[in-house]
């Protein structure tokens, strides 16, 4: 069966509007910047060399840390949630999944601004804390606020793949494990978790990747004090007008994420249930 012509429109679209522009931008990394912005087409490696500057490696490390923390928290919150949803009767599962995806129906920016209202000094968080005799805490414009915002934004991307692999799991396998003498925790540790590992890896990737490159949340909730790679790339292109260095940063970011993607694909295949 020759079905590949059907992929034509999709492949053409991706090539023309993604691969080509991305290739162009990334190629800037190997050229000099113009005095007043723009690109001078003289080959150089100095942009890539600049990446080793501790100033920028710190930003990369900080971004990794923030994205990793977000991912771990999303997994810890998302797994039990997905587990509960997969255990509901069919109709309620649909309702729960719609509820999980519902935030995507409103603008991301609006939702991030809403978090400012929640976390600010006289905001709802401190009102609630005062009501129980605690507080006030300065959360807004800290890393904690950034992690909270990213977690809120990308938690559904963790829950959905986890739900998919949990729902696919044969419930008889847990019963078989219990029948062979495994208590609930052991069933989870030895059967449920290993068999949903591909879903876990997918979810982690789905949360880590956009968190790592995000620049809106650190800008608004981090108050510019928490600089992440995304901010740096954006600033190079839009403020510093240093396109070549921005491209070099983007290249580094992309290379890192590609490594993660391949690692995930490899691990998913290795631990695939069959």
């Amino acid at each position, binding site marked *: 069966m020759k079905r590949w012509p059907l992929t034509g429109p999709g492949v053409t679209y991706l090539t023309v509007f993604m691969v080509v522009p991305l290739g162009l931008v990334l190629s800037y990394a190997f050229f000099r910047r113009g005095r007043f912005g723009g690109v001078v087409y003289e080959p150089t490696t100095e942009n890539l060399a600049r990446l080793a500057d501790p100033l920028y490696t710190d930003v990369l490390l900080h971004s990794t840390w923030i994205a990793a923390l977000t991912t771990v928290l999303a997994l810890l919150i998302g797994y039990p949630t997905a587990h509960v949803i997969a255990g509901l009767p069919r109709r309620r599962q649909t309702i729960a999944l719609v509820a999980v995806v519902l935030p995507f129906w409103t603008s991301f920016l609006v939702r991030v601004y809403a978090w400012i209202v929640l976390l600010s000094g006289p905001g709802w968080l401190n009102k609630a804390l005062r009501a129980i005799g605690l507080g006030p805490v300065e959360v807004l414009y800290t890393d904690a606020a950034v992690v909270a915002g990213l977690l809120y934004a990308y938690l559904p991307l963790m829950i959905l793949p986890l739900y998919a692999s949990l729902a696919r799991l*044969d419930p008889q*396998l847990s*019963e*078989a*494990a219990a*029948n062979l003498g495994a208590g609930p925790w052991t069933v989870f540790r030895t*059967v449920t978790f*290993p068999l949903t590992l591909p879903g876990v890896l997918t979810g982690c990737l789905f949360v880590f990747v956009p968190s790592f490159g995000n620049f809106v949340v650190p800008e608004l909730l981090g108050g510019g004090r928490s600089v992440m790679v995304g901010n740096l790339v954006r600033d190079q292109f839009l403020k510093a007008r240093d396109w070549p260095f921005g491209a070099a940063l983007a290249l580094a970011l992309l290379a890192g994420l590609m490594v993660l993607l391949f690692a995930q694909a490899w691990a998913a295949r290795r631990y695939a*249930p069959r």
Partner: protein
Amino acid sequence: MIEIRGVGHRFGRTRALDDVTLDIGEGEFCALLGPSGCGKTTLLRILAGFEKPETGTVTLDGRDLLAVPPHRRPVNLMFQSFALFPHLSVERNVAYGLERERLPRREVRERVEEVLATVGLTEHARRRPHQLSGGQRQRVALARAIVKRPRLLLLDEPLSALDKQVRAGMQLELKRLQHEVGITFLVVTHDQEEAMSLADRIAVMNAGRVEQTDAPVELYERPRTAFVAGFVGANNLFPERDGDGITAVRPERIRIGDGDGDGAGAGAGGRLTGTVVDVSFHGGTTHIAVRVPDLAEPVLVAVQGPSRVATGERVSLSWPPEAAVPIPVSPTEGEKP
């Protein structure tokens, strides 16, 4: 050893089990036989601890079994789908239950090797379940369940996933194993031949109730309800002329003759006349269906070898008095299958 007393259970509005009482003795090979949806699997799941019955008690050696969580019961189940762990090799699947008992690693290894040798899978120990054939998977599932040396082994339709050739061999193997390891077996099946050939005792279930519990031969020769008579060995059921009983006659006890019957109705030692509607040759036997006026179902006759009777022919049917088994009007509202 196992005493099931008055167990009842329902799912929503459907009654899955209704006042089921059954005793299973030590070392016995017992079968639950019935059509799908009769509640036999529910009873199995209750014994394994996956369902809690609404009423009734189940005791094992006099102790309440229902109070014990599933993972602490000395009861192992071989699932119909086998439910092998896809991410573990054959030997890790078999070792799983022993590892939960925290046995020394050496003992686990020895027992796994021993049981894999018993079921003939030593060479496949390192394979994953998806690399095995249906028959091999079935033996892994069996090995995984018996390696724990449970007091009671439950088998849910153990042979249904296998094709005919493998089935016969596996049937023998199950019986041999049961003698060898001396574990009490309870097998659930909808296949009467499977139940008859495997079990010492069969409980026939219908619509959530146990209709009759007996040894295979008793069950075959003396069915006590219309349902049992129809389900086990496809008896012909004739309404009794006088009184309100039913008479059951086995297909192989009916003799077929030419069409000069006297047309007398069914009774103790009967004669009937009818028209042949179907003849099917099964190798060893031939099944002939005869439409008789006034009877709702065609009468089934089984004769040895091929038959000269053709479809559309008028024939007479007769049987000796001792072939007619009277069945009292069933106390349960069991329908005919």
